[in-house]
């Protein structure tokens, strides 16, 4: 009886496994996934305008709320513009390889760690939406423009901020040097005995 029980369970398990398997023929070759071609991507995305006097940023967003999607696409386009004007990139790569042991006991250890950070911060004055379009998949696409004149103002303000920061740092270092000098001078000053008189 135990044997027939085992047989039944094995057969049913096999049926379950076969029945729930994908209907794709096993012999079918593993085909590369076909690239998704969006035929209604706006022309300004595929062929961005080329104008020396204007800087462009493109943003897109697909959300269930089309109003929020449009605003998000605009915000992303502005961030793209800001990144063109000012971006600070920080990166750290740790590549660690260790080999220990001899012969069959040889062990290799490899560890790679990559950390990156990209910061953008800019005050955009005069950025404007020049084109927008919603594609069939409900994605909003936005083309944002900033005139070269307004872009120069942004860069100038960034340079000015940097110069101010440099000046503040120089002032801080100068104060620090003066404080240190005072400290040394105080230490070197001979103690005056007020009771000597």
């Amino acid at each position: 009886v135990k044997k027939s029980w085992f047989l039944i369970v094995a057969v049913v398990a096999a049926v379950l496994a076969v029945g729930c398997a994908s209907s794709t023929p096993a012999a079918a070759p593993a085909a590369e996934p076909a690239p998704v071609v969006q035929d209604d991507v706006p022309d300004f995305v595929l062929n961005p305008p080329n104008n020396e006097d204007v800087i462009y940023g493109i943003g897109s967003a697909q959300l269930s709320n089309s109003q929020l999607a449009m605003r998000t696409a605009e915000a992303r386009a502005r961030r793209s513009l800001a990144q063109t004007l000012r971006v600070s990139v920080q990166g750290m790569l740790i590549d660690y390889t260790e080999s220990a042991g001899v012969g069959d006991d040889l062990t290799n250890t490899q560890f790679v760690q990559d950390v990156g950070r990209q910061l953008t911060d800019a005050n955009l004055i005069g950025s404007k939406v020049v084109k927008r379009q919603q594609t069939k998949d409900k994605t909003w696409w936005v083309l944002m423009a900033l005139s070269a004149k307004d872009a120069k103002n942004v860069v100038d303000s960034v340079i000015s901020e940097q110069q101010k920061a440099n000046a503040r740092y120089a002032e801080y270092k100068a104060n620090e040097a003066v404080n240190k000098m005072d400290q040394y001078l105080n230490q070197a000053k001979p103690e005056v005995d007020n009771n000597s008189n």
Partner: protein
Amino acid sequence: MVRNTVLFFLSLFLIACSSTPSLTAIFQPQQTSVVTPADIPVGGSDGTVVKGDFWDTTPLDGDLIIIGGAGQYMKRQDGINAALQDAARKAAFYDSVGGSIQETERVGSGIFDYVNKVDTQLNPVEADLLPIIESFQFDPEQDVLEVDWSIFVRVRYPHSIPLAVKRIHVSRDARPDWVLSPPGEINGYPAAVGFANPREKVHNTYIASYEGAIFAIISTTGIQVRGDTSTYGDNQSIFSSFGMDEIGTSMSKGTLKGFYVLDTWLDPETKGVYTLAIAREAAAQ
């Protein structure tokens, strides 16, 4: 006994292989029953009638043309009064309107790790609305439209600082060009387009689109944009991991003088409303 066991596993097999109901079928969007506004008598004074999809509010003879909206009330007159109040609020915005907008978007590696938040704030109207309403030129017979549980009024508002703007549209048979290609300025005034997706009541869609135009112009005066993208990846002998975290914020605060709506268009397909507006002066705060 054996037969029972086989039947048990067979039923298990059938349950396991039955398809689960499609979530997309459950969340199919409901068809909205928003009615496209019919012809609204625009310019009761000059007799022109414009297709309802377009609400042309170009100034007439130096007077401002303002459309106010409200929900329907038990008494028609109460609805008209509420719509007139909305028109008066917009008239007060012509003198000055201030507001701020802050957008935050955070994207992480997790499947639910996405936050998108927009905070908008309009400064409250301080002007007394009653004298403004009394100065409106308004014909209750011609300048009222009731549609889809909303009521709209159209008023003429004489103002000492008129706008020198010409009528900008010719064709009324198609979507206006400014919807997808917003003009940065019109007749020297800064311009922008506001958009709102359909609300339950159509007048709320129009109001949201109107306010969207205010924030769109404020955003052009100056917007602080910040982005912070962090990536992390490691690859040990067996395990590897990758993570990305992105936070983007943009903040803008400003004041507009002479904010004025030139045209409003309702998309017949999506029922979204677009508002084309200008401002005489726009300044960041």
